[in-house]
């Protein structure tokens, strides 16, 4: 691997690191695990980088590698998921921007999303990132119709978690 490629890759990743951080935030529960997953995703991105031809957007490519690593390749157990503390995971919500009830609602929502399974989380993540159903379907390897069906089920699931 030559120096140019290294420099190009690190610069691109540094500029787009938010994508990876967001995946890590959703799939891990503490800072150590976050860093660990970030590192594994970085390694996978770097290994796949020579094959990135630029026929898709770099961000699209990063979403795919990052999610694949989190869902499939990453090995650490996530046993503490039920007991983890919400505050330590999600960055603080600025109170002044929201009224009390909305803030409370958001907190509950984040907590509910964190309780979802790996696949459901991936769908929610891509939805939150404003991806359309075609891209969600392509990333996961399912049909667009099924992605919609699945998303509706997740919404119902979230509603049940929020209003038991």
């Amino acid at each position: 691997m030559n120096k140019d490629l290294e420099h190009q890759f690190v610069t691109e990743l540094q500029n787009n690191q938010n994508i990876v951080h967001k995946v890590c935030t959703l799939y891990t529960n503490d800072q150590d695990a976050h860093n660990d997953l970030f590192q594994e995703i970085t390694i996978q991105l770097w290994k796949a980088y020579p094959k990135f031809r630029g026929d898709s957007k770099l961000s699209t490519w990063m979403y795919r590698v990052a999610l694949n690593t989190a869902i499939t390749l990453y090995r650490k157990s996530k046993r503490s998921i039920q007991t983890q503390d919400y505050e330590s995971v999600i960055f603080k919500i600025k109170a002044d921007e929201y009224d009390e009830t909305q803030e409370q609602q958001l907190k509950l929502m984040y907590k509910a999303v964190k309780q979802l399974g790996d696949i459901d989380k991936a769908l929610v993540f891509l939805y939150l990132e404003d991806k359309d159903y075609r891209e969600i379907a392509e990333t996961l390897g399912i049909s667009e119709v099924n992605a919609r069906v699945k998303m509706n089920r997740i919404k119902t699931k979230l509603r049940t978690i929020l209003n038991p």
Partner: protein
Amino acid sequence: MDELDLLKKDWQKKEDHLPKLSYQDIYKMIWKKSSSIVKWILIISILEFTIPHLLYFIPSTKSGFEFYENIGLKYIFLSLTIIQYAVVIYFIYLFYKRYKEISVLDDAKNLMQKIIKTRKTVKHYIIYSLSMIMFIFLLVVIGVYFSDNLIESYSALVDEPIDLSPTKLKKVVMATIAIFGTLFTLFLGGIYFLLYGRLLKKLKANYKELQKLEV
């Protein structure tokens, strides 16, 4: 759903609160070793392909060969060894091919499917190996049953005087080999299924979930 759209707005506002890694931080990371499932499958598989072959270098296995020769199994073992190597080479080729097909750029479902397929190749190899081990133990038991000079070949192996009658010795040796063979096979199989069971539990669950969607 209004709540999820509310969340979406909030999620996108949060970008500023994410950690920021420096160029140096990221540069250091690209030289670290991966600890992905695929890496582990590769490591475990290499061990599984090599460990049985290392057994041949242990001296007791070598004297074991003399023992087989004495009980008249020499040619059977020679041909079995040739078949064994042919099969191992075939499995290594298949495994390498499958392993190369795994790409992190695939969609999630395909990626999982390929990992499971690669693991299946190893699983088939293990099942073959275990049956082979069982078969060899069985052959030895049969060889012992039909041999006439068991006492000589056996005392050559252990250098200890034997004070058992030939028929009794035969029974004891046969039973010992049969019991040991069964336990050995179960033990190896147990280790194998435990290793992969743990490694791929999460992946399999996720794969099933995606698969369920498509039916």
